[in-house]
Structures are given as C-alpha cells and as structure tokens.
C-alpha cells in the first residue's frame, strides 16, 4: 500500500541505528501480554549478522483505508524467506474482521468482501499465531510505516500495548538509490530537477525484470516484496552485507 501522507511523516527516513537485539531483550522483560513476551523472547539477530544468515519474513497487510488511527486491517500475509529461497510454499495468510466497517473503495482495492470479513476472526484471536510466525525473523516490507503503524495501532486497543520490530523496507532501499542521487553540477546551476524514478512496488519490480503481479492481495504483495529484496541484494549488496546496513 502506498500513501503520500505516510511518506511525509518523520521516521520515513532511517535515523539513528537501533540495536534491535538489545531492544528485544529489554522488551521481553517489559511486555505484559504473554504472546508479545514470547515474541520478543524469541530474540533478534545482531546488527552485524551477514544478510545470508538472517531469517527473513516478508509481510504485507491490507487495510480498510489509509489512516492507521481510524482504519483497521482486513488481512495479513507472511512469506518466510532468505537470500537463497522465498518459501512461498510456507506462506501464511489471515483474513481479519476489522473494528471499522469496510468502505466500498477498499473492497474494490483488495477484493475482500463483507461476507468474508464477517466470517473472519478478530486479530485478537489469531494474534498468538501471527506473532509466533513472525518471531525470530527480520520483517521485509514495502513502505514500512504502513505495517508498523497498523500493527502497532491494532495491538494497543486489544492488549493495551504496542509492538516494535525491525524491518527491511524495499521501498526505502529503492529510495536510497533513486532519491539521493546528486543532481549534477549543470542541473544544479540551471536549477533543474531531473525526473524522479517511481519507487512504488510495481515500478521498482519492473526495474529488476520482475513480473507484474496484481497488487493488493496481502500474500501477493508480501511475495512481491520478497522477490524485490532478493533482486536488490543480488544487484546492490552482497550476502556478506551486515543486516544493520539495511534494517531500521
């Protein structure tokens, strides 16, 4: 999912590096919910772990709208992966009943209907499963603020506390390449801004010769991000690159 408002918020750009291993150790002690405690207790790799040794999990959520405060999640897709393999065969998908009604517009985007949602459980009921699947993995997303803010925002009213986790954001990796290019002396002198490359998932994928997938299915989008990350690493990083250079 892509929302311009989210990009403009502070935090969309990587800031000071977090020591996620230490932070997970601390959170495991302070978390009150049992499921959340177990999630943190599963631990996190250190920042100097080479990418080839990092267990990864591509994540995507579909939502009723774009405001993490007002809108809710209707589905979560998870695809485990590493640099060698995207284990689509081990992927997981949940349809959820959000606490806000489905807008007609969102139905047309993600194709999940009222009747499916009515039959679906509340996130609270499957939270243990979801957290268990995520445990021990570094998450891979395209546009981290959506996943972070929606997961965090969904947990607070349900268990009274939020969640924090490291992500590798394939959109941010594309932005690093395409948005931080020096403009060039001549362009600078003339005040010209070269056209910016799109970092939307579908356009980013096209640059790596990845096929066009129909967007807005949590599982397909998670798979699409997973493939994009493999492509980015193959082209621009190495299996030995420490994970701290990519995650935030």
């Amino acid at each position, binding site marked *: 999912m892509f929302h311009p408002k989210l990009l403009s918020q502070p935090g969309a750009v990587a800031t000071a590096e977090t020591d996620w291993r230490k932070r997970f150790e601390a959170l495991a002690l302070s978390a009150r919910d049992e499921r959340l405690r177990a999630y943190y207790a599963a631990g996190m790799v250190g920042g100097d772990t080479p990418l080839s040794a990092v267990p990864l999990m591509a994540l995507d959520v579909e939502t009723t709208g774009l405001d993490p405060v007002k809108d809710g999640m209707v589905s979560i897709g998870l695809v485990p992966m590493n640099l*060698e*393999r*995207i*284990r*689509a*065969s081990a*992927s*997981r*998908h*949940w*349809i959820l009943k959000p606490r806000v009604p489905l807008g007609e517009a969102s139905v047309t985007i993600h194709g999940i209907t009222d009747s499916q949602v009515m039959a679906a*459980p509340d996130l609270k*009921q*499957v939270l243990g*499963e979801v957290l268990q699947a995520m445990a021990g993995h570094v998450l891979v997303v395209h546009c981290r603020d959506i996943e972070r803010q929606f997961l965090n925002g969904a947990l607070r009213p349900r268990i009274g506390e939020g969640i924090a986790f490291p992500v590798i954001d394939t959109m941010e990796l594309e932005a690093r390449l395409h948005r931080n290019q020096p403009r060039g002396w001549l362009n600078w002198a003339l005040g010209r801004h070269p056209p910016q490359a799109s970092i939307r998932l579908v356009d980013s994928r096209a640059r*790596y*010769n*990845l*096929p066009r*997938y*129909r967007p807005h*299915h949590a*599982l*397909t989008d998670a*798979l699409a991000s*997973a*493939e994009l990350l*493999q*492509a980015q690493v*193959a*082209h621009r990083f190495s299996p030995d690159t420490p994970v701290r250079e990519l995650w935030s």
Partner: protein
Amino acid sequence: MEAPAMQDEQLEILQFLQGQPAFAALPEEALHRVATSVDVRYFKAGSSILESGQPAEFWFVLRSGAVEVFRRDGTLYNRLTEGGHFGEAGLLQKKKVRFPVVALEDTLLYLIPEAIFTELFDTQEAFADQVETEDRTRLRQVVSRREESNQLMSATVDTLIGREPVTLPQTASALDAARCMTEAGVSSLLILEEASGSAEPVMAGIITDRDIRTRLVAGGLNYDTPVSAIMTSKLVTVEHNQLVFEAMLQMLRHNVHHLPVMRHGVPLGVIALSDVVQYESRNSLFVVSSIFRQSSVDELAALTADVHASFVRMVNEDASSRMVGSAMALIGRSFKQQLLALAEAELGPPPVPYCFLALGSMARNEQLLVTDQDNALILDNRFDPARHDAYFSALAAFVSDGLARCGYTYCTGGIMATNAKWRQPLKVWEGYFSQWIEQPTAETLLSANIFFDLDGVWGKTEWAEHLRKFIARKAKGNSRFLASMARNALLRTPPLGFFKDFVVEADGRHSKAINLKRRGTAPMADLIRIHALAVGSLAQNSFERLQDVVAAGVLPPGRGQDLHDTLEFISTVRIRNQADDLTAGLEPDNSIEPDKLSAFERKSLRDAFSILGDAQTYLKFRYQPGRST
C-alpha cells in the same frame, strides 16, 4: 484459523501456472497443490543457477527473464524464457543436475520440489507428455546422437582407402589408361608429371571412367590422345587426417566423385563417393562379405559377435526399423546361402534342382536378432522320395544345424526343411496353397500363416516367385479364405496400455512385461498381410505391402499412414530394447518391462496399441465371412 481458503492461496502463482501448457490440463486439485508448493528465487543476469553434478532437487519454471542451458561440453543446448522449464533431465534420471544453467537476464524462477514433480509426472499423463515432448525425447536424441553415434562424423578418410593409388605418366595414351583401369579394376587413375632428377613425381591430374566417356568417346577423340588431354588437372584433394564427413562435403561442393587422399604431398590412394556412401552400412556389409569367406560351420558360428555389433551400431546410428530389418535379413540370408554352399560341397551336387525358401520375418526383410529359423524346400517335380530324399534330408539337416549354431534357434513349430512335410516338389506346394486358400479352416491356417511370407534364397529362386504369383492370384478377393485369416489374426491382441510398472490388458489384468513381437509387430504384420492378399499384392515386406494396400484403396483415408507409423514405432522400441540388452551384456529378447520405457514411449506405445486394436476391428468387419471383398 482454518487452513486458508482456495482464493487466499498464491493467486499469482496459481494463475501463472494455469496459463502454461504443461499445467493447463491438470485437475484443479493438482494445480492447487503445485501452486502451494512452489518456492521462488531471483537470479541476477550472468549468475549460475545450476551446476552439473549437484543434487537435483527442484523442477524449475521461468516466471520472468531468460536462461541458457548448456551441455556438459559447454555448448549451448537451449535458451528459455517465460514459461520455459528445466531440470527435468536431472530429476528423471540420476537425481543429479545434468545440464548447467545460467541466467541470461535477470530471472525469477518458480521451484517445484522433486516429490511434487515426480508425482505429477507419474500420475498426470498430459503433464508428462508435455514435459517429455518439450524436452526429454529431443534431449535423448540429441544426447545419443552426440555421444554414441555416427562414426561418420569422427572417422578419418584414410580408413576408407582400400589400395595404393593406380598411376600412369601423363605421356600415356587414353587407350593405355582404359586398359590399365580395366586390369586394375579401378574407376580412376592418378596421372603423374615426370619430375626432373630424383624428386618425387608430382600429381598432374586425375582421369575417371566418366572422363573417358565424356571427353574421349563422346568428344570423338582418337584413342592415341595423351591422357593429359582428357584428364582433370584442377585437383580437389583431401588430407589423410580429414574426416570422412569433410571429404563428403568436398565432393558435394565440387561435384566430383573421386578424391585423391594426400599425406605430405604424396597421394596415398583415391576414395570414391561410393566408398563414403557405403561407409554407414559398412559394418553389415562387412559381416556379409565375411560370411561368404568362411569355409566351415565353426567359422560361421564365430561371426555371431560381429552380427550383434553391426546391429547395435545401426541402432545407435538411428537407422530406421526397415533398414535394420533388411540388413539383418540380408545377413540371415547370407548365412543360409553359405551353409548351402558348404552342404553341397560336402554332399555333392543335388540329384534334382531345388529352391531353398526363407519364410516369415526373413522373407519380409523384417528380421531382428531374436529369431527362429523358418525355412522350407521346394523340389523339382521329378523328385522321387525313394531315390532323392536322403540327399535333401541331409542337406536340410546340415543347414538347420548350422543355422542353430549361428544363433537362429530351431523352429518350435517344426517349420523347417528338416520336416518332410515342408520338403516337397513344386506341385505339392501348389496343392498345399490351393487347399489352404480354397478350403480354409482355422486350424490349418493357424500354422500356415507363415508360408504366406516366402522368399527364395538359393537354387531355383524363380519357383518362389512362381508360388507368390500363384498365391496372389488365388487369394485375391477370396472372402472365405480372407475371413479365416482375419479370424486368426484377431487371436493376438495388443494390450491396453500401462499403469505404473504394469502392462494393462484389455480385460483389466496387469502383467509385468510385454512381448513386443507377439503383441505388437506380429499382429501388425498379420493384418497387413491379409489386406495385401486381398488386393493381390506380390510384395513381402510389410511397408511395401502397405503401399500396395493403400494404392488399392481398401483402407479408410489416413489409416495407411497410421499403420505405417505404428509398425515403425513398435519395431523401433523392440529394436532398441534388443540393442540395450546386448550393450548391457544380457541375452536380447522381445520382452520389455514398462519401467524400461520412457513416458514418451509408454504414451506412444499406447497410441500404437490403440491404432492396432482399431485396425483389427476394421479387419474383422471388412473380411466378414460372406461379405464380398
């Protein structure tokens, strides 16, 4: 939560697979299982995807990008793009990667686990067909062609030289040249230029039979004309270490039929186009010529290994069943002829003339390795048993025992010249055939079938010719006879097909192996023979008979070609199976276990059996008793 519902699965993967030919025909449940077992991997352009020899764990389908598949010798084997697949060779054979694969472009691959691939391949006919025809049959041909076959491609020209070059100085006359060529029995002469001093003579040109015809005789020149005036002085030559194949190209390119073979500027000999053309079949021709050089049964029996070697070589060179069948029949006929020559040398000349007959597959030029001897004797009508039969009985015994020693087992049905019943004067043979044709009974015809394929191999072979015409005349349009023959022909039916490692019979029974002769080629030959007799064809070979049958219009349109292909295919599988047995050091036979067949062969055999079954039904309908033909 429950297991994800259908629409929640990997939609992209599912829909992509649905659009690929290999998966198009899969039931939804199977397709769904594939889609949910797929793993994914991205490869950057230029990176190695598979290396030869690593364990084969997946079958790969290209989702996007392009890859190149290489042979083990590093040459390009295939280039694939979206929807292409690879890795099946490794999975189907040794579970090791056979062909290295490299990403030509940035490539996204779907990985299908070995277990799923194998299950689909074994249980889903349409899937197996698609994968097989896409790759493995082609691959097998390519591999066998490259690895084992065609010594034409690797033999050097000096292996073809039979003798020293025959030469004349350029001062010799055309008449001298013609005499010299006749004496030496050659079709070309090298003409030498006398060199000064001690230097080697230099080649000035070549003259051939054709030069004498076109330039001398047709040109109206005097026989005293010096050869230099009619020779070809622009010489096309080959070096001794060039390939036979290259020599052939030279001849075609320059339109010449003779090439001097040179070593260090000195001619070693001359090779003719016929040498090159015959090279392919040289082994079987060599066996035949050595058969005629042997002077005892022991020596003949020692040639069995050569016969086997020439059989295997022909198979490896992808000879058609017809080529193999007639080469093996030629060899078998030669054994008979040489044994008869040896018998006459031992027993003395025959008291009355005779014709030694080959029957069955040898007469049809469809002989393979595993064959029993079916033969008979036509004797002169003056034959008097009391005075002459001791000789012919001894002759028949000599030949029959000799053939048995050379690998042609005795006929269990006693259809051999050693049986007095099948050692009869021509008029008795005419009587036999008249009775079989005019008063047919199922029982008599059951054993008589084989006599309707007959060929004279020695002596008065025109009598065999006479009998063939006699049969053709009497059988044509004789509905009662044809109906009886047809009834017998329906006794041997093909199986239905294959399931797992079993042969499935029409009644649902399973058997472990199939006799491809008894259940395939023999019923084919039977039904083709009946149609041939119905139309009065004099041909003996099944393919030739089929041509006559098609020309006579007794088959529904297209059926002739189907029958031709069916016979060729079943024969080819049978032939290859025998060659494989020989190569593996086993006793060759006609029996084949389904697990030895590739899925492509299984599928094609099933088609062949079904065509054979239909053709038998048609035979029954066409030659119903009382139906006018």
